[in-house]
């Protein structure tokens, strides 16, 4: 039996798109959780949905699984509605919070879930693909956090799915456990399946994904390859008080964004207190120090992921405004 080939994919569109999300909106009561999400997943592609907690990642996954129906917009898997039995036969799922029966052995759990599928992979294959051979006889309750996630991963692959959804697959795992699960996920994508995973670690999205979709407050704030996204978020913050006029800072080629904390006109000493976001902190500092003899209170900080998301969100907001103005 060929392991490299997935079962026939007759409903896949010509360009290899397995999942299509168009303009999806959803609210829980008055809380708008998703606010116009677009994304595509192709065969063999790993797409990471990256965002801070509460960004709407899990809601998006739950919609792809057919648990919720979007208020507006459309979701299609293999050209069909999520949640249909034919669709469910072709997907694999790792939910963020789904614990297995503690008293069952790893192999018993994998076997149990395999029976749901028409063409399941063999128990041996699944244990091997999830790196569980040595833990097959252990009860789920006795496994480490990483091993439990591996059991859930093996279960996700049970039906040899064309698409796999992994909701925060490595949250709570140590670095080593995380890395080794990554290699198993990559190996499965190589067989030609589309994989969607959510994460709030940029590192994870970077290590795994071909395409990253950054969402925040239910909106896509950036899409791109890992290197494109990393470039956008690898910003440094330069905190300082300077006599350089704000307009000039805005026009500076090395500065991505200016956050003014206190204008020169408001401070007694004619210095503007501001935070400058840049990808080239050293060059910017050299230039600023040369231009401005009065520059003081200088601090350089790496922008954390939260700041990076914020930067992306606000950049997005600014662009929106500019577009509206134009």
């Amino acid at each position, binding site marked *: 039996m060929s392991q490299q080939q997935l079962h026939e994919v007759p409903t896949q569109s010509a360009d290899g798109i397995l999942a299509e999300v168009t303009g999806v909106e959803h609210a829980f009561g008055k809380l708008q959780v998703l606010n116009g999400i677009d994304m595509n997943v192709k065969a063999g592609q790993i797409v990471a949905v990256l965002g801070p907690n509460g960004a709407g990642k899990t809601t998006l996954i739950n919609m792809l*699984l*057919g*648990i919720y129906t979007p208020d507006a917009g459309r979701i299609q898997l293999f050209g069909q509605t999520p*949640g*249909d*039995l*034919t669709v*469910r*036969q072709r*997907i694999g*799922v790792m*939910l*963020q*919070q*789904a*614990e*297995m*029966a503690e*008293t*069952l052995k790893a192999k*018993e*759990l994998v*076997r*149990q*879930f395999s*029976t*749901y*599928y*028409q063409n399941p992979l063999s128990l041996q294959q699944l244990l091997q693909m999830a790196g569980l051979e040595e833990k097959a006889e252990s*009860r789920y309750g006795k496994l480490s956090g990483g091993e439990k996630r591996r059991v859930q991963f093996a279960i996700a692959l049970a*039906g040899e799915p064309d698409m796999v959804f992994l909701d925060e697959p490595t949250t709570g795992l140590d670095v080593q456990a995380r890395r080794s699960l990554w290699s198993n996920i990559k190996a499965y994508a190589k067989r030609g399946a589309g994989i969607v995973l959510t994460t709030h670690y940029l590192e994870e999205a970077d290590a795994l994904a071909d395409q990253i979709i950054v969402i925040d407050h239910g909106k896509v704030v950036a899409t791109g390859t890992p290197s494109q996204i990393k470039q956008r978020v690898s910003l440094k913050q330069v905190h300082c008080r300077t006599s350089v006029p704000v307009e000039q800072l805005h026009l500076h080629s090395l500065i991505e964004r200016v956050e003014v904390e206190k204008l020169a006109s408001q401070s007694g000493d004619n210095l503007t207190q501001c935070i400058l976001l840049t990808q080239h902190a050293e060059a910017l500092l050299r230039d600023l120090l040369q231009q401005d003899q009065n520059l003081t209170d200088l601090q350089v900080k790496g922008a954390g992921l939260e700041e990076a998301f914020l930067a992306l969100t606000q950049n997005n907001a600014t662009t929106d405004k500019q577009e509206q103005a134009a």
Partner: protein
Amino acid sequence: MSTLTLQHQTKIHLQEIWSEWLRMIRTPMFALPTLLFPWMFYLFFGVIFGRGSGTAEYLLVSYGTFGIIGPALFGFGVGVASDRQQGLLQLKRVLPMPMSAYFVAKIGLCLIFASCILLGLAIIAMVLGGVRLELLQWLLLFGILLVGTLPFCAMGLFIGIRSNAQSAPAVINLLYLPMAFLSGLWIPIFVMPELLQKIAVVFPAYHLAQLALSVIDKHQGQPLLGHLMILLLFTAVFLLLAGSGWRALRDR
């Protein structure tokens, strides 16, 4: 491909029952009390302290009734509550498993445990209590008590949907133990004060016990059809309540 073949459906249902059995028989907190309590109680009160005048016979039936209610209430109540809380139910819903397999597994588990309880009681009754029944009586007794688990499965399902895994055991014990006593499952109903005898009719366990006792002609003499109707009504009410809770769960 849009529907599963009958053969595949059967396989899934059997696999779910098997997994549920393995899971619960390896959970001493569930398996030991549900199996041992009815056997122990019957051994003490029915056999050792209860010699003579058909006590062993009567209590075989009443402790049998007591016994089979346990796995129904705990299996469904605690089982559904923890599956729900652990996210397992949510996962099974998105996988291509027919939801019927989930309930069939829970009912199957309950019937397996109920059968073990009844077999153990029957052996104690015959070997140590000197109880002799006709084959037809044994079959009727087992039949009534196995089908009789269903109303309590419905009640357990309702509790499992409405309470969390930590509180479910307490809720069930608070219902189960007083109900068992007041329905005359521990001490024969006819030796209880008249007031308690009148109160007993509100409990489904009383009606199931009366149906089972009719097999050895020791029931109180109320019409059997009445007991049956009340049990059916009780089942329907709890299924309706559970059903609305179940839908709320899904739509949340």
